[in-house]
Structures are given as structure tokens and as C-alpha cells.
């Protein structure tokens, strides 16, 4: 490609010379004179690298580090000064010999520079689907994670906060991408370095801007890691000729509003339920429940008891400077959040120093270094009945005392078994207070680079990036508390220690050549990169302590072998990449790119993957015929096509592994055993996504209204999947690349500056996205894969809720007689299921299965709206984010509506079927019949578990006031008040967070094949803060 380019270049050169000759003859020629000058910005900053050219000729130069230039021009000539981000200025030479120019900043967003993969582009010339967010737009949100700040801001990107655990749980999905077993998180690239660590720990104040790459044309340069989309993060740099010091601080408080919580029975209601339970079964009522009114005023709200009002604070100092060849930026941050569950604490201390030094006009070196320390302690809040204390708390009988008569926290509670109490309920307040579950993380992210421009237009850049992480996890369960239900306290004390050391590095060598002539503009990029990652970890579990105060390893009587292990995970990646961007007059745009990735994760027969893309754009508004449409200030059509991959397939999945801990016993001796536990697949490879994107950008009324539309369609094939195989093989599955999923969608963004008149400015930005998917194929011979309450079936959308269709309860004997039943288990008042296959009998599983698709965890559309209003020094902004048509599986209902009364119950169970005369609301069935009858309602997954989880959330409201008066203390200051997670509008009844998911990856609830499950995660608090930004 390069060779060809050089050939054509020489042809153009001939053409050029001819053209110059013609010009010489036609224009009346005057004597050339030497002109010098300095270019500055409107506020006096030196501008380096400004293009200065003689209009109508090929002659040109750029300003040096002092902003000065020298050029030869005739007195009749016109000089053109152009600089990215500024309005181009033309000056007639006349008889001047010194021409100093000041350039005005171009407000028009289309001249903005957009960071794209391995470079940057003028926004107008971008041919892919790229959306950018600048730090300014999201600065006031009092949250710790960047993804929280992006909620509702980007079309086509669904960001859900699945848990309120500080620093955790942001689920980011670009264009609905998903995977059967790999990860679906986008690739995060910080200052050119695709990181492996947790992006949630990055201090958002270090960020200058973010580019979200959505289509294949913009992502395919990231090859086998690009299929989930790419998020490029650029950290703060010094601005030309300026030194800025700013200090930002906010402090606030978090609460979980009472409204919206899942409603459970209080003590009186629960006692009443128990009383009715025995009455309906015609059994004597246990003494404890004969008179429910004795619990009047003695309610124990266990859920509320583990929550609290909690403070948070953030401090950030930013210093940026760019003077005399040296550019530096420093960001120092402290973030401190106490969680709204007792004993939760999240602290982050972060530092970033970015510096760049221009050694000469040709050589620049730079070093960014960002060390960080994160401390996190969270009680075991999230999880199933086994371990999650929030889940356990709502299940605990409200008649059980949190504190005893002396005001001390009880150890655990258990009623006599005659009351139907099966489980021991430990005291969750104790569990939250006394369990240690802390992670300490130290990490360093660094980039070093040298760039060299040997000739005009050519830049060679070599970078070396290092990512280090040291993480220590410590868990201690003392003898006096536990997060596990059905455990009498005291318990056996247990400690777990985990230590992880990660080292990742990346070396990139890039060459960029830029050339323009006669309105033909080329940019050629070529690169060669190597990346490596290694993680070493160990875990020690010890138990049985003589003293809870000394949870050392040596203090334990027993080392638990099953919980003690060491592990190494490693991968490497070698890549070649190239891109050619061409445009004519900035009007006809064409970009082609290609990347080849060789990965240690891929099987030996399939080690290299190729990921090409092609995109084109046409700036219609630059055509002459558009001059008649003066209201249309900008119009561009775009189309792109490309291939990307997902290499989240595990590091050693291709190998047949021997497990050498399959130990036998002979007599009282352990005999080491070893067995092949997985099958090799030397053909194993990446997941492939082919994507087509068509879109357009429109600007009206001098870009006061900007509209962007994208349609995309993509097909993901070769999904990594552990295909279940018949177990007479001795194996459960075979890791293979199978199947095909089709995704398609529409994205609309509308940014408007509705009012922009003097002191009053009002803008509204909004977006809406429609994402769809459909499974086109799975493995040969397999047309469905089951999740936990889900089915993924050929011809249907991915991960649909699956089970029996519930149709009320059997209202009376006649209803029972005339309806299909579960033999031996259906009675009047029990749940009535639909006989889907029409064989007259309700069957769960096997060859006569009546289960069917019940719902969809994916939204019909997601949307966001942001508005900013400023009047003089006052500003006001609101951010809203919504999702429509998504459903959740109310997983906890199998126990919070367990009709046997083993747990506390959802308040709605009050309106259950009790008799033909008192049939309730027809949703919950009778308690009579014990597990035989009630078990179906609970254990046979059915449509009662599916709830509409559409929502619209006011994510943030901020009001601010700016003091521009320069004084001794500061140059300017702004005071603001902000409410995060202000209001949630939803009909969702299964819990307080309609964005929740029990987890995000893996095979459990909420994982890959089982999306959209509510397991009562940490609630997302409402946070009210006040803050001040000082500029010095």
C-alpha cells in the first residue's frame, strides 16, 4: 500500500509543478518579500504549530515553539493562518513585513478534535460512529466512577448501575453486545493503553475527554478486543501557554429513600399471616401467633437496621502548565465514601503526573505516571440467601428482636419449631459490623513515549506502557457473627487472605505520515505492537480461632486445604496495524484500516486473526447546491463496514488440562489422583463480529440544533461456548466457537442550544436508542441453551425468561376439574399453570414440557436527556436516564413469597387465596397443602417472577453559582449543590433498583446466559452534596 502511495505521489508532484507554472503566468507577479510574525490566541497565548500558507500556492510553514513564523510572499498575496480548534484567518500582505495575528477560538463543535484509535481527527472528518464526552459536561456528578457519569449521555450505550456498592457494579454495554461465555464489557484505553484493570477505580477528575467508539470502522484497529466497543480515555494535559490551578471539593450525604423499597410484612402482619396459615390448615395456632396485636410497636425492620445515612467527600487538586517546551499536568485526588450499609467504606487516593518535553522541533518525549491506592470494605451484602446480608435481612421474621431487653444486639434468633421456624436467623447488624471483607489495592498506570518527526508530515512514535497492580483481600468471620442464614451463632471463625500481583506492559511503535496537496489529504498510519499480561495470586483460608481478636494465619487451628490455592494467569498479544485516511477538500472522506492480532489465547492452528474495516463519508453541506439551504449548517452522510473480535475466551481454554488433585483414598491414606478434566481445542479462536453502520449528522441554524442518526447491524459468530456434550465421554463440555447472533439498532441524538442570548443560555441534549438481537444459530444439533431461569434459543432473542405461564389460581372445584393440573399436586387455591403443549397435563421438563418463553430482560429502547440552563452567574442542570420495556426476574420471590411462611413475606401475600369466598387478588395461592402444593408456585419457575423494570431516573440535578471576581484568594470560584439518583420513576415492584443485575458475567444469576435477575443487591443511594470549584 505504501509503495503504491509513493508512486502516485510522484505523479501528483508533476501535476503540481504544472499548476504552479500556470499560476506564475496568469498572476501578475511581484517581487517576493520575507514576512515574519507571531501567532497568538485571542487571550494572548502563544500558538505553536499554526499552519501559515500563501493563498493559491503550495508555499507554507508552521509556527515554532515561540509562535513565530517566517514566510516568503508577494505584497499582493494573502496569508492563510489555520489552526485546529481556531477560526482560520486570512491577511493581505500589502507592504507589511511583520504580521502578528491573533486567532479566535472556533466555537463550532465540528472543528473539535476527536480522539480516535491511534490518533485524532477533526470531528467533521470522522467517518465512524464516535461519540465524545468532555470532562466539563460531567464534572458535577458526585460519584466515584466514570461510568456513573456517563449514564444517559451516550446513544447506543446502556449503562446500568447494578449495585450500590461503592466503586462497583457498573454494567456498560455498547450496542447491546453480549456473549455466551466471554465478557461483554467494552475495551478501555487510557492514553493509548488498553488496560486490564478496573476502570471503576480511575479518578474521573483525571479525565480530559472520552471517546466512545461504537462501529467497526472506528474500533477495528483494536482487532480481537474491539467487538464490545472501545472507550478511549484521555487524561488532562497542560494547555498552550497557560498555567491553571484548580481545587475542587464536594461533600455530601447518602440515604436510601423509604419509597421504592421492596415491601415486606411488618411484625403484626406477619403474625397475622402465621395465624391464618394455621387456621386455614385447620391446625391449632401456636401460642406465639394467637394474638398478632402483641407485636404492635415491636416491629423489627431488619433491612432498615443494616442501612444508615452515610457521608462522602471528594477533594481534587489539578495543576496544568504548558510553557517553554514543557507541558505538565498534575491531578491529586482523595475520595472517601462511607456506604449506606453499615461498615461500608470506600477510599481512593490518587495521583497523576503527565509531562511532555519538546526536546527539539523534531523530538518530543513524554511520561505519564498515575499511582493509586484504593481501600474498600463492604459487608457481604450482595448475593443469594446463602451469603448476602441484605437478601437475608428482608427474609428475617420481623417478630425476631434485633436487640434484646438490655439493648444488646442479639446473637441469632430462632422460634420453636412448632411455629414453623426452620432456619436460625443470625443478627445481620452484627454481621455487617463484625465481618471484615476488605480489599486494598495499589496500582500504577504509566505511559512513556518518544516521538520523532524526521521530515514534515512524518511522525514516528514509540511507547512503552506499564500497568502494575498489587491487591490484598482479607476476610474475617469472627465466631460471634455470620452472614449465612440458618447458622446458629457462635460459629467457627474463618479467615481468607488473597494476594494478587499483576504486571501488564505494552510496547507500541507507530508511524504516521500526513500529506496534503491540491485539496487531497492523506494520513497513513502503520504500527507494530506487543502486549503482555501476567497475574500471580494466592489464597489462604484458615479456620477455628481460639481468639477472634487475632485473626492471623498462625492463630488458626486449621488451614482449610480446599480454600487454599495459588494461580498464575498470563496472556500475550502481538499486532500489526495500518490505516489510510483520505479526503478531498474535507468533503469526500474515506478510511480503510486493518489489524492483525496474534494471541496466546488462540489455539495453535488458529493463532492469527485479521480485522479489516472500510468507511466513507460525504459532507453534503460543503457542496454548492446546499448553499440554497442556508438553514442547514452542516450535513454529513457516513457508512462503515468492518470486522472485530472478542478475545475474552480465557487464557488456557484451548488446552486439555490435567487436574492432579482428583485424589483417591485407600484405607486412611490419601492417594494422589490425576485426571484429564477438559478437552483440547487447537482450533479455538476469537468471537467475530461483522458490523455495518450507516448514519448521518445534521446541523441547523449555525449548528444550534445538531442531529445524529445511526443504524447498525452486526453479526457475531464463532461465539466461545462450552458446548455440552454427552457425558459418556467423561467430559461435560467442549470449548468451541459456535453459533451466530444478529444485533441491530437505531440511535438518535439531538443536541440543541435553544436559547443563547446574552446572559441566558439554555441547551438540551437528548438521545434514544433501540437495540435488538436474535439468535440465528447455536451448535449443530443444539437449538437451545438454558440459563438459570432463561432460555437462549435459535430464532428468539438471547437470554429470554423461561418457565411456566401462570394463570391465577384454581378458583373452585369446577375450575380445578375443567383445567389441566399437575397430577397429585394441584388443588383448589393452588397456582394454575397453562398447558402450553395441550396434552391435558402440566409437566415441568422432560418430553412433555409445558415451559415457554415468559419475558425479555432487554429493553425496547433506552434514552437519556440532559439540560443546562445558565443565567449570568447561575447555572442549573438535570440529567435523566431511562429504559423502557425491560423486565427483571424477581429471583428473591421464591422465598419472599414462600407460602409456607418459613421466611418473612412480601406484603402482597396478604391478598392471597384463602378460600372460595375470599380468593384474594388471584396472584398468590393458598398456604394449605404444604410443600406438595405450594412448592409448585415456588419451585417451578413461572411468569409470576417476571416484572416490568422500565424506568426513568433523574440521575442528577445541580444548581451552581460562579463568582468571577478576581481576589486575593482565587481567580474564580463556583459553588454548587447536587443531588445524584434524585428520583426514580418505575413500576418495578421487586426491589428499589430497576437497573439491578445479580452479577454481570459468569454462569450464575445475572450472568451471561441468565441476564436480568434481581437478587437484592446493595441499594443505590440518593446522594446530596454541596461543592466548590476554585480556580487560582
Amino acid at each position, binding site marked *: 500500500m505504501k509503495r503504491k502511495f509513493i508512486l502516485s505521489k510522484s505523479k501528483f508532484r508533476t501535476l503540481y509543478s504544472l499548476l504552479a507554472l500556470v499560476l506564475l503566468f496568469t498572476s501578475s507577479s511581484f517581487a517576493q518579500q520575507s514576512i515574519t510574525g507571531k501567532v497568538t490566541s485571542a487571550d494572548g497565548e502563544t500558538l505553536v504549530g499554526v499552519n501559515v500558507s500563501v493563498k493559491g500556492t503550495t508555499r507554507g510553514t508552521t509556527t515554532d515553539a515561540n509562535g513565530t513564523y517566517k514566510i516568503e510572499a508577494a505584497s499582493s498575496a494573502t496569508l492563510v493562518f489555520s489552526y485546529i480548534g481556531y477560526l482560520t484567518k486570512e491577511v493581505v500582505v500589502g507592504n507589511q513585513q511583520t504580521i502578528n495575528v491573533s486567532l479566535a477560538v472556533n466555537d463550532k463543535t465540528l472543528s473539535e478534535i476527536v480522539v480516535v484509535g491511534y490518533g485524532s481527527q477533526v470531528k467533521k472528518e470522522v467517518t465512524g460512529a464516535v461519540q465524545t464526552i468532555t470532562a466539563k459536561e460531567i464534572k458535577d456528578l458526585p460519584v466515584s466512577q466514570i461510568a456513573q457519569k456517563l449514564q444517559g449521555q451516550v446513544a447506543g450505550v446502556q449503562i446500568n448501575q447494578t449495585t450500590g456498592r461503592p466503586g462497583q457494579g457498573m454494567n456498560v454495554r455498547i450496542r447491546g453486545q453480549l456473549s455466551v461465555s466471554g465478557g461483554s464489557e467494552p475495551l478501555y484505553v487510557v492514553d493509548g493503553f488498553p488496560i486490564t484493570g478496573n476502570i471503576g477505580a480511575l479518578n474521573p477528575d483525571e479525565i480530559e475527554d472520552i471517546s466512545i467508539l461504537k462501529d467497526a470502522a472506528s474500533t477495528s484497529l483494536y482487532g480481537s478486543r474491539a467487538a464490545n466497543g472501545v472507550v478511549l480515555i484521555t487524561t488532562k494535559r497542560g494547555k498552550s501557554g497557560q498555567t491553571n490551578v484548580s481545587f475542587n471539593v464536594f461533600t455530601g450525604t447518602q440515604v436510601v429513600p423509604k419509597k421504592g423499597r421492596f415491601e415486606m410484612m411488618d411484625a403484626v402482619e406477619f403474625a397475622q399471616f402465621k395465624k391464618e396459615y394455621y387456621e386455614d390448615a385447620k391446625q391449632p395456632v401456636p401460642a406465639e401467633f394467637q394474638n398478632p396485636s402483641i407485636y404492635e410497636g415491636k416491629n423489627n425492620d431488619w433491612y432498615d437496621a443494616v442501612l444508615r445515612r452515610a457521608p462522602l467527600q471528594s477533594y481534587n487538586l489539578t495543576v496544568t502548565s504548558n510553557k517553554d517546551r514543557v507541558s505538565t499536568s498534575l491531578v491529586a485526588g482523595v475520595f472517601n465514601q462511607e456506604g449506606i450499609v453499615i461498615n461500608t467504606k470506600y477510599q481512593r487516593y490518587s495521583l497523576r503526573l503527565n509531562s511532555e518535553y519538546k526536546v527539539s522541533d523534531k523530538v518530543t518525549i513524554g511520561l505519564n505516571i498515575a499511582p493509586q491506592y484504593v481501600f474498600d470494605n463492604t459487608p457481604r451484602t450482595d448475593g443469594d440467601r446463602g451469603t448476602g446480608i441484605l437478601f437475608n435481612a428482608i427474609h428475617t421474621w420481623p417478630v425476631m428482636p434485633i436487640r434484646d431487653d438490655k439493648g444488646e444486639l442479639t446473637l441469632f434468633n430462632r422460634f420453636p419449631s412448632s411455629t414453623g421456624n426452620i432456619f436460625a436467623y443470625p443478627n445481620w447488624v452484627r454481621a455487617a459490623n463484625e465481618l471484615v471483607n476488605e480489599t486494598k489495592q495499589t496500582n500504577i498506570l504509566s505511559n512513556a513515549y518518544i516521538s520523532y518527526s524526521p521530515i514534515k508530515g512524518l511522525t514516528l512514535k514509540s511507547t512503552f506502557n506499564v500497568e502494575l497492580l498489587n491487591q490484598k483481600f482479607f476476610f474475617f468471620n469472627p465466631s460471634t457473627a455470620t452472614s449465612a442464614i440458618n447458622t446458629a451463632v457462635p460459629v467457627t471463625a474463618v479467615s481468607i487472605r488473597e494476594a494478587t500481583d499483576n504486571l501488564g506492559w505494552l510496547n507500541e511503535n507507530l508511524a504516521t505520515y500526513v500529506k496534503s496537496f491540491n485539496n487531497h489529504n492523506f494520513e497513513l498510519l502503520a504500527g507494530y505492537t506487543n502486549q503482555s499480561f501476567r497475574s500471580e495470586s494466592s489464597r489462604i483460608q484458615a479456620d477455628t480461632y481460639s481468639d477472634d481478636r487475632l485473626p492471623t494465619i498462625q492463630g488458626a487451628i486449621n488451614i482449610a486445604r480446599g480454600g487454599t490455592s495459588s494461580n498464575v494467569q498470563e496472556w*500475550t498479544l502481538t499486532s500489526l496495524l495500518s490505516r489510510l485516511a483520505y479526503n478531498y477538500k474535507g468533503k469526500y472522506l474515506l478510511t480503510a484500516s486493518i489489524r492483525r492480532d496474534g494471541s496466546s489465547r488462540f489455539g495453535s492452528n488458529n493463532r492469527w486473526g485479521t480485522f479489516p474495516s472500510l468507511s466513507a463519508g460525504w459532507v453534503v453541506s460543503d457542496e454548492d447546491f446546499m448553499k440554497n439551504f442556508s438553514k442547514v449548517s452542516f450535513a454529513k452522510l457516513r457508512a462503515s463496514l468492518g470486522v472485530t473480535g472478542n478475545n475474552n475466551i480465557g487464557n488456557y481454554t484451548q488446552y486439555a488440562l490435567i487436574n492432579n488433585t482428583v485424589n483417591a483414598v485407600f484405607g486412611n491414606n490419601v492417594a494422589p489422583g490425576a485426571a484429564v478434566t477438559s478437552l483440547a481445542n487447537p482450533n479455538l479462536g476469537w468471537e467475530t463480529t461483522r458490523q455495518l453502520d450507516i448514519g448521518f449528522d445534521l446541523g441547523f441554524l449555525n449548528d444550534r440544533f445538531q442531529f445524529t442518526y445511526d443504524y447498525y447491524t452486526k453479526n457475531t459468530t464463532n461465539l466461545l461456548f462450552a458446548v455440552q456434550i*454427552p457425558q459418556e465421554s467423561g467430559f461435560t463440555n467442549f470449548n468451541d466457537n459456535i453459533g451466530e447472533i444478529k444485533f441491530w439498532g437505531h440511535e438518535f441524538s439531538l443536541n440543541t442550544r435553544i436559547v443563547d442570548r446574552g446572559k441566558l443560555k439554555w441547551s438540551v441534549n437528548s438521545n434514544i436508542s433501540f437495540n435488538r438481537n436474535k439468535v440465528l444459530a447455536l451448535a449443530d444439533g443444539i437449538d437451545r441453551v438454558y440459563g438459570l431461569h432463561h432460555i437462549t434459543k435459535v430464532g428468539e432473542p438471547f437470554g429470554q425468561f423461561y418457565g411456566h405461564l401462570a394463570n391465577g389460581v384454581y378458583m373452585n372445584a369446577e375450575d380445578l376439574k375443567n383445567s389441566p393440573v399437575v397430577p397429585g399436586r394441584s388443588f383448589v387455591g393452588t397456582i394454575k399453570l397453562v398447558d402450553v403443549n395441550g396434552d391435558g397435563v402440566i409437566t415441568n421438563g422432560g418430553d412433555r414440557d409445558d415451559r415457554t418463553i415468559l419475558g425479555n430482560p432487554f429493553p425496547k429502547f433506552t434514552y437519556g436527556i440532559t439540560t443546562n440552563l445558565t443565567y449570568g452567574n447561575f447555572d442549573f442542570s438535570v440529567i435523566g436516564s431511562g429504559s423502557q420495556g425491560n423486565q427483571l426476574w424477581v429471583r428473591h420471590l421464591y422465598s419472599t413469597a414462600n407460602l409456607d411462611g418459613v421466611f418473612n413475606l412480601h406484603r402482597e401475600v396478604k391478598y392471597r387465596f384463602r378460600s372460595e369466598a375470599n380468593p384474594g387478588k388471584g396472584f398468590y395461592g393458598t398456604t394449605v397443602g*404444604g410443600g406438595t402444593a405450594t412448592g409448585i408456585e415456588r419451585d417451578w419457575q413461572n411468569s409470576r417472577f417476571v416484572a416490568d423494570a422500565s424506568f426513568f431516573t433523574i440521575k442528577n440535578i445541580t444548581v451552581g453559582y460562579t463568582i468571577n471576581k478576581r481576589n486575593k484568594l482565587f481567580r474564580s470560584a463556583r459553588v454548587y449543590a447536587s443531588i445524584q439518583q434524585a428520583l426514580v420513576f418505575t413500576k418495578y415492584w421487586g426491589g428499589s433498583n430497576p437497573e439491578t443485575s445479580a452479577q454481570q458475567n459468569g454462569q450464575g444469576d445475572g450472568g451471561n446466559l441468565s441476564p436480568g435477575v434481581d437478587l437484592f443487591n446493595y441499594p443505590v443511594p440518593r446522594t446530596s452534596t454541596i461543592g466548590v470549584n476554585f480556580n487560582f
Partner: protein
Amino acid sequence: MKKSIIFSIALSLGAFSCSDDFLTVTPETALSSVTFFKTESDFIQAVNSAYVPLRTLHNINSHLLTEQHSDNARYVRNVLFGATENQSNLADFNVPTANGITTNGNVLTAYRQNYLMIARANQVLALIDAATIPDATKKNVKGQALFLRALGYLDLVRYFNKAPLQLTPVGNRSEAAAALGTADQLYAQIIKDATDAVGLLPAKSVQEAGRATSGAARALLANVYMIQKKWADAETQLRAIVSSGEYSLMPNYADAFSNSTSNKNTRESVFEVQYLEGSAGLNGNFLYSMLPFPIAANELVTITGTSNPQPLSGEGNNIPTPDLIEAYETGDKRKDATIGYITLGGALHANKTFPYIKKYARPHALHNNHGMNWPIYRYSEVLLFLAEALIEQNKLADAAPFLNQVRTRAGLANTTATTQAALRDAVYQERRVELAFESKRLHDLVRTGRLETVIKAYGDRVKADKFRYYFPSEGFVPSDAFTNITPYYGLPAAEADLSPNF
């Protein structure tokens, strides 16, 4: 331009030249199959792993499928618990089965664990002949692998009467499914493997205690011949065991079963599944699935003797039926050794005293973790098999002494039966009480063609008096109970979904 080319070449050169090495990253904390199966130790470890599935197969699973699914054991209904159908359907003979396929989870476990054992044996058998390891080790390891494969297929053929016949290790997805073998094909393979194993395996006195022996292989082979009614062939194998001098009955019946840490692999033991108490995950906990629930900690501790008893709730399973309790003759010492009684304060029953299986109830250190072994073949069964084989050949006088040897130890007088039919019944009766709760009952009823009559009558008794069969006042016998009395289980539905062959 030249300079820049040199610059970029210099930058990239080092990394380019070693890209293949750079891209090869093998796991450091696990071995790969490429490097394994070379040394003597590799093959010993490999055959050891083939024993492991036995721990799952007999840690209550076999008991549920052959004893709870018979007239020997039942569940104790707890109306507060659902999701117990996998166990209760076995006891109630209403295992959901359609088109020869069942969704019962215990059936699935038995199927999968047997094939896991078979696959690990196949892995050894495919490679061991070519391995350069000492001959004695080679014979011993191969014999053990053949024995375990035969044991696996015997289990499968008795449960299903047909099953995929997989004799070589599987290397990729296309080889995974194997064609269904008929009962004849499976039995032929078992006989071949067990016969070879007899020739390869050492006798018990020279084999490490707990591993398969020539005696164990003979017992297995005899078992197959008994099923096939090849009485003379069975007699040959059984007499070889008796005359080997390796085995004898323990004087006290209760001592035929191991304690948690002692009395394992006694001279009565022909083959037993080995468990080890402790935190290494090699323990059993089947005793905890043989108790009536809900049981309080102070009640449980009287049976288990642990230092940290925890109350248990749920549905109790594997509770001796009154039918079995009544089957013991007066004065039979085995009755007290086999069955105990416990009173549960929290039971939702009018009669809060329940029998439980005492045979395996030995004190151990920690809750839900014990090391008692599970008997597969005991010498007393060899004697009863031999007696039966002789009776069927009408060698009645030869048969009676073997039967009486077992009765004498139990404190009973010699049998009074004299006719072939009477002696046959006497052996059947003796097997029921001698081998109670050793995962034999269903197989015996099927083998002797008595399943339908015995279970039908038993079902009628359950329906006639549910409280006698441990139903609480709120409980009831399901309307479809005792409607599916068939000698074999349907093949598991989860596997039918995966296999093109059924």
C-alpha cells in the same frame, strides 16, 4: 526518510524475531495432557482418579435408587419443604418417565458419575499397553482400570438395561456420543473386563488395602453370572473366593462395617468405597441423608457424636420401612445393629419416634463429615450368592452350610428349609436382612423377577395406612404413587437432550 526507516526497524526488530515464542503461553498451575501419561506414577495417579466417582455414586445416590426405591426405605414428609420430588418419587414409584426418558436428578447423577469412572478407566486402558513402566505395576493398574470399568457398566446395565458403550477415550466433540449398547453387549463387555481383571489383579493380602483385588473382580464376575442365571459359572468364581483363604466373616455383624477412622477393609470386606474424614473433601456424609427431619442439634448428636452438631431441616429420606423391620426374625442380632430409633421434638407427626439406619452410624469428629466406608461386596454376600447358585443347580445339601454360616453369625439357628423352593426363599429373605441398606434390594427384586408383586403389595400397604409410613397429618400419598413399577429407569432427560442416539 532513510533515517526514519532505520529508526522504526530498530524499534521493532527485537520483538518480531521471537513472536512465536512470545505467543506460546502454557498454563503454569496445571499439567497438560501432552506431558502426562508417561511415568509409572502418572498411571498410578490416573487409575486413582478413576476410583473417585465411586465416592459420589455411593454417598447416598445408590441408596436412593435401590433402597428408597424399594420396600426397604421411605421418606419422612415435611410439609414445609418442596423440591423433594427427586427423592420422594423414588420411594413412591412415580418417577416421571415418558418415552423411556426421565427427569429424575438422582438417575442423572448415577449415569454421569459411572461414565466419569468409565472414561477415566478408558484413558488408562488406551495408553498403558504402550507405556514403558514396570510390568507388575502395568498389570496391577490395568487390572484396576478394567475392574472399575466393569463395575461402572454393571451399575449402568442394572439401572437402564441399555447404555452407550464407550470404550476409548474421547478427544473431541464428534467422538463424545456413543451408540447405545444392548444389555447383552454390555454384559459381554463386563464379563470380558472382569475376567481379564481377575488375571491381572493381585490377591487381597498383597494389594494395597482398598484397591480392587482379584477377589473383588471374581465377586463382580459372579454377580453378572447370577444375573444371567449362569449358576455354574457363578459357582466357579465364588468357590475360588471362598477357597482363596483371603476372606472370612467378622464374628460380630456390626464390625463388618467400618468406623469413621478405623475397622476399614476388614477380612470380611471384598470391595468397599473408601472415604476419609476431614477437610480435604474426601469424606462422605451419607449418614446425614439417612435421618428423619427436622432434627435438633441435641438429638442429632446422640447419633453422630460430633463436637459441633447443627440442627437439620428439610425432608428426611432413607428411613427404614416397618416392612423391613418386621422382616427380621426374633433374636436376629442384625436388627439392632441395623436399625435404631430417635425421637424428634420438632416433628410435625403424631408419633415423633422414627427408626433410622444405624448400620453406618458411627461417631465422628465434625458435623456432616465422616469417613465410614460403603460396602460394595462383603464376604457374607459371596456366601449367599454361592448358596443361591448351588440351590439353583439343585445342589441343596452343598448350599445350606453357606447360608447357615451367615445365619450363625447373626445368632440364628440353621435354616429349616429343605426344598429348593423353600431354600430359595430362605436365601432371598437372608439377603434382605443381611444386606439391608447396602444398595442391593432393588437389584435383587429385579434379578429374581419379584419386583412387580412385591412393590405392588407394598404400595397397597402404604396407601392403606399412610401414617405408618411416616406421613404427617397434613401429608398425603400422591395420587399417582405406585403407578410406575418398572425394573429399569428411563435414561436421563438431560443426556437425551445431548445424545443423538436416544
